[in-house]
């Protein structure tokens, strides 16, 4: 028999400061009245996001009651993200989202910051008193822990959690989740795993399975993580965080295509999650799936309009993938993509006008877009407009890389290669960048050709493995027609030709063709992944020729 929330609630309400955010004056007034009736005293109310952020920047607020739908402009989720991101709201403060329509789309939009609770309109006094009263009681009980987390004193927070667990069974789930998360933060994965295993040994709870998956990934146990998360997703098709983690596990397992499919499904379910769309966009780009990448970047850009996560990189990436998509495509669709790319890039120049290199980055891509539409004059003009900034020694590496890509499209191959070689020297201590340089040197063509060459390469390998040497040679040659300087393709061909030579009665012609392939790779830099293979094949060939 209980009166669940304590009678001292009035006192609880009275000690705290409140901020009400709603665009309707009537609602602000009635909320203020309800709060007063509950015993609250320090209440401020504002009508929009910027006023809310402004207020929190200069005042301490314990409880924010924020309407989700604030008309044009930023919504409640944007405010929450901004407040938490800029650390204008402490972890020990409560953020309650008020919704007229509880929409899944919105609830699932968030990938990081989530509100401490939801209030569903209509709100009456009894409801607010119970709901908020309960949260305040929880806040007070957990305040010492949250305070340590705010101070990033995680070890202390962990021991407080452990102390609190036996005395506060009411908040057991919160404590277990927080504890597991804290262990994760300090890198103590075995304790974090144990928490989830303990919970799961008593009952199959989805949050614990999710947590387990997260730790398994951190422990680089990708196979088990993927299996766990796959099962979770199939049981809970509406659990978006599980999709995110599953995609991560699949990616780390080396299954980028499957990872992309998972994220596509998740993005469809939660059309408002910027970071999820961004993750999908990055993945699809690296999978050379430019239509999907463009779509996802487009979504990322548009969701960024009012978001703290907005970034010029999203615009640039959208411009780049649209450029890839439109290249050499003079159909209506192709020109539309090219036009969209130019529009987006111009918008980026305006929106991020103060940012360093923004015009440079924009014009490099614009030039490529024009070139892809066979407008060489415009392509040149775009580069001329930033001529004074196009200094390979001063440009940031990523811009250099992009510039080289444009130079290839403009038919200035020698310039592009020179630029990339210089860049490789300059950034010899940056392996990811070196890899990008290699890929560009290997495949300085559009994504469609890239995909074609890659699939031919796979076919060639298959034919070789099946013993169809003649077919392998033809296939590799077809691939090399598309990407003549591709290092591993050339070496593949050399290997097949050598094998053919061994099978024939010394057909010297075959060896000459090998020689030609290796000559093409004469200036392959030492740090290239294929360099060792090149050296050993070269030695072998010399042996066979002598």
């Amino acid at each position, binding site marked *: 028999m209980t009166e669940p929330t304590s009678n001292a609630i009035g006192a609880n309400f009275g000690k705290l400061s409140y901020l009400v955010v709603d665009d309707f004056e009537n609602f602000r007034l009635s909320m203020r009245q309800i709060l007063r009736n509950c015993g609250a005293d320090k209440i401020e109310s504002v009508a929009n996001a910027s006023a809310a952020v402004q207020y929190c920047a200069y005042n301490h607020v314990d409880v924010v009651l924020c309407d989700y739908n604030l008309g044009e402009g930023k919504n409640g989720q944007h405010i929450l993200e901004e407040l938490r991101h800029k650390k204008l709201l402490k972890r020990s403060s409560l953020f309650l989202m008020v919704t007229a329509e509880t929409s899944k789309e919105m609830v699932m939009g968030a990938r990081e910051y989530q509100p401490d609770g*939801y209030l569903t309109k209509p709100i009456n006094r009894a*409801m607010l008193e119970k*709901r908020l009263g*309960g949260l305040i009681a929880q806040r007070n009980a957990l305040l010492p822990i949250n305070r340590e987390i705010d101070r990033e004193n995680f070890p202390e927070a962990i021991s407080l959690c452990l102390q609190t667990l036996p005395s506060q069974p009411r908040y057991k789930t919160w404590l277990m989740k927080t504890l597991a998360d804290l262990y994760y933060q300090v890198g103590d994965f075995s304790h974090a795993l144990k928490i989830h295993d303990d919970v799961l040994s008593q*009952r199959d709870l989805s949050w614990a399975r999710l947590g387990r998956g997260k730790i398994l990934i951190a422990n680089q146990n990708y196979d088990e993580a993927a299996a766990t998360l796959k099962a979770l997703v199939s049981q809970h*098709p*509406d659990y978006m965080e599980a999709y995110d983690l599953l995609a991560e596990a699949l990616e780390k397992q080396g299954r980028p295509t499957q990872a992309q499919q998972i994220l596509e499904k998740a993005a469809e379910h939660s059309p408002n999650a910027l970071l999820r769309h961004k993750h999908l966009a990055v993945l699809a780009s690296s999978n050379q799936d430019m239509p999907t990448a463009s779509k996802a970047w487009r979504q990322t850009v548009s969701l960024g309009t009012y978001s703290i996560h907005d970034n010029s990189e999203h615009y640039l990436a959208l411009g780049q993938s649209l450029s890839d998509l439109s290249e050499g495509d003079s159909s209506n669709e192709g020109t539309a993509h090219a036009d969209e790319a130019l529009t987006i890039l111009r918008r980026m120049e305006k929106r991020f006008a103060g940012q360093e290199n923004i015009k440079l980055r924009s014009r490099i891509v614009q030039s490529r877009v024009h070139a892809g539409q066979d407008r060489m004059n415009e392509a040149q003009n775009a580069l001329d407009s930033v001529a004074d900034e196009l200094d390979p020694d001063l440009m940031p590496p990523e811009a250099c890389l992009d510039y080289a890509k444009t130079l290839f499209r403009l038919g200035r191959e020698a310039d592009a290669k020179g630029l990339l070689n210089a860049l490789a020297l300059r950034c010899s201590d940056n392996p990811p960048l070196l890899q990008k340089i290699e890929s560009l040197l290997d495949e300085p063509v559009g994504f469609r050709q890239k995909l074609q060459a890659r699939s031919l390469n796979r076919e060639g390998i298959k034919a070789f493995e099946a013993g169809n040497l003649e077919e392998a040679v033809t296939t590799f040659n077809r691939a090399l027609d598309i990407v003549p300087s591709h290092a591993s393709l050339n070496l593949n061909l050399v290997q097949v030709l050598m094998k053919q030579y061994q099978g024939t009665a010394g057909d010297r012609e075959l060896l000459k063709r090998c020689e030609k392939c290796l000559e093409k790779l004469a200036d392959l830099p030492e740090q290239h992944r294929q360099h060792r293979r090149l050296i050993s094949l070269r030695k072998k060939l010399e042996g066979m020729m002598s």
Partner: protein
Amino acid sequence: MTTNDHDELTHPRGTQSIDFSMVLASAVHDMKNSLGMLLNSLDELRQEQTDTIGDSPRFNTLQYEAERMHNDLVQLLGIYRLGENNLSAHVEEHFVPDFLAQQMARHTPLLEGMGIELAIESDDINGFFDEDLLTGVLNNTINNAIRYTKSMIKLTAAMHNDFLVIGVEDDGDGYPENMQHNGTPSFKSLNFNSGSTSLGLFFASSVAQLHSNGDRHGYIKLHNDGRLGGGVFEIWLP
């Protein structure tokens, strides 16, 4: 109160043919939101005009019926998602008395207006369930009890045979013989002619089923053996 209905629909892409249930669900979603706004206004009106409205039966009917429609629509959307295989129970551990108190709070203004007493009788226990789904079930059940009770409604919670049993009792005439059962009403057995579609029971039973622990699943039970003398709705959660 947290969100009580996962109901936003994903937008179909690139499909030209009309998916009628999808169209219907979108329309229901829209209506539900409108009713939400209407209910909000009614609540505010009651607060502003306490003197004139007070216990006006007509105002109570207005609010009650709007509430009922709102619940029905929430359930329709739930059932739609069930059919789409897109509804699952996100079970977490909750402190049951707190949960019941929140459920009660939502109905307080209407109950006060109608002069119905609402009490909670719960052990201090933690229970495992999906808060949002159960909120949907209890909203509807309490609403139903409001319709049939004379003067009192009681929310109960206790553990029986390793099941968490949450009950809603009233002091009305009780359930008719043919409705008393435990188990799952199938969709086919719903009788649209009797005026009562039992949509709420179907939803409640589906939500109970979604809750499982090992090989045990939840179920609902209707009987008249309560201490208030009227109907008793029970949801048994493993």
